[in-house]
């Protein structure tokens, strides 16, 4: 998920922490965060996933005037081609992070995507499974590598039972 400009914002960190039910003050209270070991607000460990907000043309965000596959008048705004995908679904299979340096509000990260491996196997519940890996390196405004993310996605050939 590449994005050239991922501004780290205190309000965004607060909303993200709320969404995972984490009330730790280091995620929303600058005064309390100043008394902690990091000494400032930090994001929760999975926060860089929210770089999607700043990824241009991200396919899981509706865009004005563009068809969207969720429901409106109809159950989906995008008709599948007849004989098409067969009910398969893309899933997130694995996610791994390495943390190299601290992140703080005011930082601006840049993500560099690298294609990883891909492989296929027969699944028990979702038919044939196609796996693909991507590696994203997040650098801050000083070109310091702060986080390495490795994501594995899987595409099933039918609905998971």
């Amino acid at each position, binding site marked *: 998920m590449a994005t050239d400009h991922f501004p780290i914002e205190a309000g*965004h960190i607060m*909303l*993200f922490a*709320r*969404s*995972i*039910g*984490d009330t*730790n003050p*280091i995620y929303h209270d600058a005064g309390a965060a100043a008394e*902690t*070991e*990091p000494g400032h607000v*930090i994001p*929760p*460990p*999975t926060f860089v*996933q*929210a*770089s*999607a*907000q700043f*990824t241009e043309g*991200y396919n*899981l*965000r*509706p865009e004005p005037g563009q068809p*969207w*596959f*969720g*429901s409106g008048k109809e*159950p*989906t705004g995008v008709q599948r081609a007849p004989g098409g995908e067969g*009910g398969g*679904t893309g*899933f*997130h*299979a*694995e*996610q*791994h*992070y*390495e*943390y190299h340096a*601290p992140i703080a509000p005011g930082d601006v990260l840049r993500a560099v995507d690298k294609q990883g491996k891909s492989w296929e196997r027969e699944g028990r519940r979702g038919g044939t499974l196609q796996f693909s890996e991507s590696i994203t390196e997040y650098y801050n405004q000083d070109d310091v590598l702060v986080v390495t993310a*490795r994501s594995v996605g899987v595409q099933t050939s039918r*609905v*998971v039972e």
Partner: protein
Amino acid sequence: MALSKSELSVGDTHEEVVVEDLTRTQIIQYAGASGDYNPLHTDEIFTTQVAGYPTVFAHGMLSMGVTGKMLTNLVGDGRLTKYGVRFVNQVWPGDTLTAKATVDAIREEDGETLVDLSVSTVNQDGAEVVKGSATARIDG
């Protein structure tokens, strides 16, 4: 508060209930904060009528996020050096998730003291939904 080596032994466990009766609203909160607006997580009509699932289900990253809360509560702020998971089973509205960390090793590397943890989150039926590992810096 960070952990110190003297407080830890291999085999120690730490467990927290990280979500109780997961609501669709919390899944929507996660969609809004993370930017992953896949309707499979928030749009009941699409998910049941088009995708063919019984109801919406949580983002894998929401399960990883709530599990991470248990980890940071255990190891302290800014102490994780690695955290990775596999998404083993789907998480549904109404689920209650309990996340557990087990101390696998305490070791020294490049002048730092590290703890290796295995991580497992289960639902109210005991089915594992997230399985992974983490490493954190601890006080020597």
